[in-house]
């Protein structure tokens, strides 16, 4: 019994990458729902992290998210992913309006020596839950998106990371005159994710 408990709390690199990938999947879904990028009807409710989260049901959106997260998982397992950014752009002008930043710090010891760390699932879930809650509550202070918007996901990787043909280099899509709000972070002991959101400052503020 006790050994089973211990075994479950062990976090390997692969396990951590899975947790982080799953987190990104739900975070992206939550953000595009909360920011109203697609009609509400295109989302379905899912119980996750002890919360009810909304996940895109539209096939092409789903395909995009799974395509992105699959590659993120590969990079995470090699410890080559430095950050993931979800950018919300104005559909017409392509001006970046919001940047959801997820800084990833990978424990180099784990990568090099292949050791595993310990942290209970429940603790990690709690931390992720807090970020998800924050994403939901962000809509209250984020400026309203008045135009039709699209989103994109940027991955910052190490220079030597293997890049498949489906990915291409991109600019950073920095927001001019932005304001940054730091969100919570979570730590699997292997990967530490720092979340923050940058948004265009209100011109009249």
């Amino acid at each position: 019994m006790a050994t089973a408990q211990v075994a479950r709390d062990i976090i390997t690199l692969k396990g951590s990458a899975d947790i982080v990938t799953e987190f990104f999947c739900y975070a992206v879904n939550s953000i595009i729902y909360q920011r109203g990028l697609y009609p509400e009807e295109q989302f379905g409710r899912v119980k996750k992290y002890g919360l009810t989260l909304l996940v895109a049901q539209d096939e092409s959106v789903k395909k995009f998210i799974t395509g992105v997260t699959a590659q993120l998982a590969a990079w995470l397992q090699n410890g080559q992913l430095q950050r993931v950014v979800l950018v919300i752009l104005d559909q017409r002008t392509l001006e970046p309006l919001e940047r959801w930043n997820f800084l990833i710090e990978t424990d180099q010891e784990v990568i090099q020596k292949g050791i595993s760390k310990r942290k209970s699932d429940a603790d990690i879930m709690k931390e992720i839950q807090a970020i998800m809650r924050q994403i939901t509550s962000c809509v209250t202070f984020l400026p309203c998106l008045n135009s039709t918007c699209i989103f994109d996901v940027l991955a910052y990787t190490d220079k030597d990371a293997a890049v498949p043909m489906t990915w291409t280099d991109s600019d950073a899509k920095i927001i001019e005159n932005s304001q940054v709000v730091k969100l919570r972070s979570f730590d699997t002991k292997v990967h530490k994710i720092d979340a923050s959101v940058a948004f265009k400052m209100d011109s009249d503020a």
Partner: protein
Amino acid sequence: MATPCRSPSLRKALLERPSPDVASRKSQQLGCRFIANRTSMDFDIANYMLAKENLDHEQPVLNEEYRKQLAGNLLKDSNLMHKNSRILAFKSKPPPPPEGFERNAKLLYSENVHGGAAKRSKIYRHIPQSAERTLDAPDLLDDYYLNLLDWSSRNVVAVALGNTVYLWHATSGSIEELMQVSEDDGPVTSVSWGPDGKHIAVGLDNGEIQLWESTALTKMRTLKGHTARVGSLAWNGGPILSSGSRDNAIFNHDVRIRDHLTTKMNAHEQEVCGLKWSLSGQQLASGGNDNLLHIWDASMMASGAPSSYLHRFDEHQAAVKALAWCPFQSNLLASGGGTADRCIKFWNTQTGACLNSVDTNSQVCALQWSRHEKELLSSHGFSQNQLCLWRYPSMVKMAELRGHTSRVLHLAQSPDGYTVASAAGDETLRFWQVFGTPDNNKQQLLRTRSVESTTGINNVSCANIR
């Protein structure tokens, strides 16, 4: 988070950097008494060499550490960070939102903002505080129970002054006398334009209703039936004219046929002073001095039974004269009570529910809905004799228009719905540009004005129409 200068490597670098003093102290220990020959030492070079050794090892670590910290903490999006990373994007992009998709959150979180802003701009719409024009109306009866003012769809204002009905042509400003009744038959107790704007019904003190043609100024016919004065008249949008009288009865007249009396409705116990057909012509609202308000359905009223009304509201505490059907919401009726009541009440005439009641602190004499905004204009008596503009449904008071020196008994709306005429016990008619001025209407107004100036009436702010 640790700041760069507190990082271990940096502190180490600072501590372990040997100074020339340390070097000299070391050399002092060689002999019991050693006097350093400083001329043979090049401290600058010694310092440089020592420091250089440190820099070679520490500087790259420090730099990297420092840069990382800085990038992580301060310059989140700076290019420093990008030098050792590659920004990649998935080639296939997520689909754009469907065409014509209105963002829900936008509605959720901005509805108040925009609504508020819109409301504000509307509140700040210029509402002239004074009457645009004032006309003398001598001998206008100061009687709450009569309806002496109406504005036709052909832009002619009819007003009954004593025994005479005058027509004031709003486009030209000219005045003509429609008819005059004898002292025995008069005074005129109500006027109501037919839907065509050509025919006008005139209710008399003797219980007769006369039908006049306004262009030729000829009497078409006389409708008899009431045994007391006819204080209220209403057309159903067609050939049916309803009349409310002091004999407590409401009659429907089909003005086309010889036996014009089609329906008799007896539900009021006192004089009927308010009568209005809904815009659809399906429902008739009647208010009486018995504080009752009845809603009649066109299909039900024919039965003639005393209880053939659809609804009976006894919530008002005083005579119900002011009635107005909402132009933008069917089945919504606004009613105003007299001195003892002072309330404007809103009714759903389908369900019979009282939707709202607002105490105005003054007798409500007349009500007019705006056709362009969700606004309601009410006219009042003692003590301010004012007109109040309300925003519906919030019932926020947008403006109070003062000017009349006695209770404002009657209101009539111009066919374009922007100007309201008011007739008061102070024997004046005032015109208020209270429901705004649209851009497309300005041109027409200008034309109207130029016509007026040629007739010379515009120059006189107070014209006697008698």
